[in-house]
């Protein structure tokens, strides 16, 4: 099977795999397994998966270089949009289930609570990325500008991790795990940059690949 066909046929499978966490959460809700504080469970689950999908998305570039599997990039839009999907649900849980549209209270939260400010920042940074995720938008912006814009994901991921770190009461092990993963993924980009600077030509090839 050609790589092209493999990617095309596996995409629906990857799509449904990405829906599994949400499906499990819904099943827990329907069978009464969300525990004594369901809203908290929904908040934590959607937040966790936002960060996980951000990490998966950030991992694609280093992985495709390291493993020499350039076609991995063709799943990146999907995982990125799943990060946005879970981030949106996470925000909606806060706005709807947790605060029940108490806008003034929420505005105060965004201003006063650094961890909420940080979480909101992380979400806002994802919005332009989701909005410009279509092929048409890439064309309109031009590959280079599009790519520069989409570097915002670095900031979003960092803000997301800080948001998590600032909200935990005591056990910082989980947010630190995300921090380590994001740090490694960002550092790998510096490595890629340094390696490529020594080998002129590769960048142009990469760029061409990305636009097609």
């Amino acid at each position, binding site marked *: 099977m050609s790589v092209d066909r493999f990617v095309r046929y596996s995409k629906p499978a990857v799509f449904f795999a990405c829906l599994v966490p949400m499906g499990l959460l819904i099943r827990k*809700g*329907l*069978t*009464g*397994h*969300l*525990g*004594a*504080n*369901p*809203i*908290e469970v929904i908040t934590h689950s959607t937040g966790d998966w936002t960060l996980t999908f951000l990490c998966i998305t950030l991992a694609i570039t280093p992985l495709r270089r390291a493993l020499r599997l350039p076609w991995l990039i063709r799943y990146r839009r999907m995982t990125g949009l799943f990060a946005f999907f879970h981030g949106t649900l996470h925000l909606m849980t806060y706005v709807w*289930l947790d605060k*029940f549209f108490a806008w003034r*209270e929420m505005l*105060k*939260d965004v201003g*006063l*609570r*650094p*961890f909420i400010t940080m979480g909101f920042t992380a979400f806002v940074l994802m919005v332009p990325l989701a909005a410009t995720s279509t092929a048409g938008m890439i064309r309109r912006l031009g590959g280079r500008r599009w790519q520069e814009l989409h570097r915002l994901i670095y900031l979003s991921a960092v803000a997301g991790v800080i948001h998590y770190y*600032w*909200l935990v*009461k*005591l*056990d910082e092990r989980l947010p630190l795990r995300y921090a380590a993963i994001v740090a490694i993924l960002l550092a790998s980009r510096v490595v890629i940059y340094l390696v490529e600077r020594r080998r002129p030509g590769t960048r142009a090839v990469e760029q061409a690949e990305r636009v097609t």
Partner: protein
Amino acid sequence: MLIKKPSDIRSSEITPKKVCFDRRKFLGGAAALGAAALTGRVGGELLAPGRVWADVAKLNVTVKSPFSTTEKMNSLDEVTHYNNYYEFGTDKYSPAKYAQALRTRPWKVVVDGEVLKPKTFDIDDLLKLAPMEERIYRHRCVEGWSIVVPWNGYSLSTLINVVQPTSKAKYVQFLTALDKESMIGAREPILDWPYSEGLRMDEAMYPLTLLCFGMYGEELPKQNGAPVRTVIPWKYGFKCCKSIVHIRFVSSQPPTAWNTYAPNEYGFYSNVNPNVDHPRWSQATERRLGDFFKRKTLMFNGYDQVASLYSGMDLRKYY
């Protein structure tokens, strides 16, 4: 001669009993979810985790306390499957699983320090020290959730009067057991173990302060602090000390676990106060477990009678 007429339903078509009941449970769950959507109440009715711990002994509860609230109580399932007991893990669902490893018999409680009659009590003697009361209290966690629990026990002052503190006793310190064998969470240095809490003498003597041995008419489940804990309903939940092994009367303010960990976030007093926010979140509202909508948090968690203990104190400074 009796010729059995074959049943016209093949056995393969009969729904097994288990499936049938599971389906009922599922439909029940779906109905409850529908009801929850209509009434805005979720959680309690949907919970059916079942008990994972051995049956606990019934208590002989003879007094219904006038301090009890008439508010709707939370279910035993809610109160036993959503716990902060970091010795058994930092998430709310771990204590129900892991606390069962704790051995609560034999159990001794050392009471000493600035007292005339220091004594080591066996838990079974403590249980008999005074008539067992039922006190239905609101319980507010510093994290912004609350429950209503029918605790069983008697006023801490009863015990304090037995050991007769001297005039040097200004504070009482409580210490939780520390058994790294059974306490999987205590193997990590996340708090300065053993868990320590404290009260000023007048707070400890205040009749609302409960030395608690049980809830819902039974001995405490282990995840709720068996075999003996304190309950101070006008303070945030972490001021209660679970599985107490040592009560010490001291002359100066004792170190307390959360205050040591983050002094700017958790004060020694930690009275429930909707006007003083936690540095990272608001304390103005709370979610009663089982409710969809949040409710306003009340000053001193609604136990206004304690206000006189703090007259003249700036509760923003002494949070």
